[in-house]
């Protein structure tokens, strides 16, 4: 008699794990940089569809994005150096991003025609998408060091539009799927877990533990946390806010990119599907107050489970409505907590 709830629970946890990766990326990025990245889910789409292209022996459109971004990076750096009156350094500044661009392009073009093993293509797609992290930071966020949360938010809406549109231009409106990492599965009573489900749980868990270790134990992680608590203080103790921001953006994009290759064998991927995943990650992140990664992860898992249960027991048509309605009681609770006047003023 518990078969159905059990199946729903595992299905929910599968999606929830993906939302958790999104939520984690959102919280890390927001804490360190003050950027609420509405485009968090677009990177899911980019990595998944890049794999699909590579499998078909085609060069994925993502590579053009990376190359264009790196060229822009070079231009920004050169301008910055020239303004600082350092023409020689300007030359050097241009070389690095352009060299990375050329190398990336070559690698991807060669790989697309080389019949590489599946795992290699997966890694390549994730790496390619992750490259967009530092690029987005350099080109979009870094030029505005003192912008408000609101301005950043509107800018990432721009990023969401651009990436969604480019996804449509590169891949068209049709759904893509990629094969699971492994065939077969395991049965636990009524619950049949696909091989891909196991990969998904395993890698998500690994990432969570890895991040916990990174933030708790490594110098880089601690520096990032310091930057999150107090940007000025971090700078005074020698932590580069720019570097911390770049690392945070890269990390959050990486989490999305991994989510993309984990979920697509299960659900398929369309150019605008990543956005929805990102938004559900937001619901989890909001449950964690955009600040607490552990609660955000639990919140995201809860979103996944609640979604499955409401789809089955209430209405599958309204499952998204119910998920997004979840944030109303969450916000209400936060509003009712005793707050100083100062705290809700930005």
């Amino acid at each position, binding site marked *: 008699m518990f078969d159905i709830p059990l199946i729903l629970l595992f299905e929910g946890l599968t999606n929830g794990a993906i939302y958790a990766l999104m939520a984690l990326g959102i919280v890390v990025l927001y804490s360190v940089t003050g950027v*609420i990245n509405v485009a968090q889910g677009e990177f899911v789409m980019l990595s998944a569809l890049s794999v699909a292209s590579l499998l078909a022996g085609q060069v994925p459109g993502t590579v053009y994005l990376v190359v264009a971004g790196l060229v822009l990076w070079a231009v920004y750096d050169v301008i910055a150096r020239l303004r600082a009156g350092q023409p020689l350094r300007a030359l050097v500044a241009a070389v690095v991003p352009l060299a990375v661009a050329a190398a990336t392009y070559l690698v991807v073009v060669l790989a697309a025609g080389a019949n590489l093993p599946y795992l290699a293509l997966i890694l390549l797609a994730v790496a390619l998408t992750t490259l967009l992290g530092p690029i987005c930071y350099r080109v*979009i966020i870094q*030029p*505005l060091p003192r*912008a408000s*949360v*609101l*301005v950043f*938010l*509107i*800018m990432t*809406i*721009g*990023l*969401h*539009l*651009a*990436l*969604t*549109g*480019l996804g*449509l*231009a590169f891949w*068209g*409106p049709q759904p893509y799927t990629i094969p699971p990492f492994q065939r077969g599965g395991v049965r636990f009573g009524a619950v049949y877990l696909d091989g891909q489900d196991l990969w998904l749980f395993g890698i998500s868990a690994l990432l969570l533990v890895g991040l916990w270790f990174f933030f708790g134990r490594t110098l880089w992680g601690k520096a990032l946390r310091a930057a999150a608590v107090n940007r000025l203080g971090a700078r005074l103790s020698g932590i580069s806010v720019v570097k911390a921001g770049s690392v945070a953006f890269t990390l959050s994009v990486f989490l999305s990119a991994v989510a993309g290759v984990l979920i697509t064998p299960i659900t398929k991927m369309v150019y605008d599907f990543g956005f929805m995943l990102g*938004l559900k990650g*937001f*619901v989890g992140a*909001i449950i964690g107050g955009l600040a607490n990664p552990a609660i955000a992860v639990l919140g995201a898992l809860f979103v996944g489970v609640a979604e499955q249960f409401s789809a089955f027991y209430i*209405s599958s*048509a*309204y499952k*998204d*409505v119910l998920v*997004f*309605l979840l*944030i*109303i009681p969450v*916000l*209400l609770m*936060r*509003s009712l907590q005793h*707050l*100083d*006047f*100062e705290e*809700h*003023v*930005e």
Partner: protein
Amino acid sequence: MNAPDGRRAAASRTRADTVAVWLRGGLLVIFLAVLVALPLTAGAFELRLANLVGMYGLVVLGLVLLTGYGGLASLGQAAFVGSGAYTAAILASRFGLNPWLSIVAGVLLSLVLAWLIGLVTLRLKGHYLALATLAWGLVITGVLRNWMGVTGGNTGFGSATGNRIPPLTFLGEELRGDRVYFILVWGCVLLALWLLSNLLRSRTGRAIKSLRTGAIAAASFGVDVQRTKMITFLIAAGLAAVAGGLHTYRELFIVPGLAGLNASIDYLIMAVIGGLTSIWGALAGAGIFVLLKEQLQQWLPRIVGRTGNYEIIAFGFILILVLQYARRGLVPMLDSLLPRMPPRPVKHDAAPLPAREVDRSPGALLELRGVTRSFGGLTAVNDLSFAVERGSIVGLIGPNGAGKTTAFNLITGVLSPDSGSITFNGAAIGSRAPHRIAALGLARTFQHLNLNPGMSLIENVALGAYARTRSGLLGGMLGLDHAEEESVRSEAVRHLRRVGLDEDPHARADSLPLGKVRLLEVARALMADPVLLLLDEPAAGLRRHEKEDLKRLVRNLKADGVTVLLVEHDMDVVMDLVDTLVVMNHGNKLAEGPPAVVRHDPAVIEAYLGREVA
């Protein structure tokens, strides 16, 4: 400045004013002429676009007020367009409600929905409203798409689906077709423009404009920040719902996409392009967006070689680039190129604002008893007790980090104490909101300046009178607040003169050097006609003679019956002025008493002034 120079400067100012009036007046005349000419001459296609611009413009006007002035972003304005449109359509079609009334009903329902959302988000930081409205937009679209029996689902609602929406009628005439509709739409736009520009000039407008740049300051002068945020959000939602109602009766057919996230983002793009801090920018942004989208939809699919909404790529990049390189948006940028309109002259014979009766009875005006407040592990103020006698000047001093500013924040209600009581004029104020404390006659200046840099000196000072004045939202919007506004402006100039800032009362606050800005803070506090004035380091950055002026001012205030509590590092100023000194260190009170006594207190000398050389 000698007389001929002065006259020449005045003459050139008059000339610039004349040019400004002609230029800006000319632009307004051209705009109105185009509005008159369009329905008479334009073709069906142009009129359709013009109506779209008008309806979008209404929504964007609300967004400009909310985001540009109020500093609150909504990513769900289209949801209110949708609730306005669908409510009107369903009520008129299914229940036979009069179409005009159905629009009103749609607006009312949208206001209720917005109020509920505001209730749960407006107490939180600004970006929560953005995220909540984003989610709300998805909820509304989800309902519209799936509640087939009522909304018609994805196929839409209207005659084509068997739900006939009756057209709007006026004096028996059906309002069909874009030519007639143009008058209705742009009539609404002009009305909204007039109401909003009145609002922004009014008492409530000053409060709204302070939300973004200094909500704490606004609250300290009596602005109920939550209520003002709510008003702003409701106006924005109401305008969106009006646009939704108009949309319903223009098309007589509506689809769920109307309420969708993409539409909400479109409105945001329009607002950013036109300029978030300009009501004219709302219309310009809507116009540019409509024309640009029209062109992009023709050209981009040809370039990609496939049909699809590729214009979002362009708009995405436009959004980023505008925010990076032209953050103010189009209209404010053009506005700064044109000469400034001459300021409205101040009527110096305006009726004075009612003043408080001065109470000179002896006794404590302000009393702190055992007040404690900690932040995490740090106790910023510990068991602090002291009293401020009515009519006295009390100095609160101590090294950096002693807890002086925290004490100010506790007294003014910005922070609430963990324990202990604060009494002001007989009322317990420990847990009251700042705006309610301000209303009791308490005014303050800020150590970290808290002014609106974009507003004029007069406007900044006028905010100080918020708790003393009565004009409400409607009075302000309809321009019925003239008499009170004249009184406010003339009194503002008087206080500017009192602190020596009356040279150009219409200059922007950000044109002042740091020291003078502090005096502007003082003038704003005086504008509140306070019983108790809290000055937080007023002498920082002042020159010697300015400090002398400040001392004279504070002494005059005392003679007028104002009680003063002063935090100041400049010992010269403090020792000269105060009747009583309270010394704090590490959150604790170290000493209290007349300056001559405290000055020789060994504990104070050691902790604060340094060890005395024997």
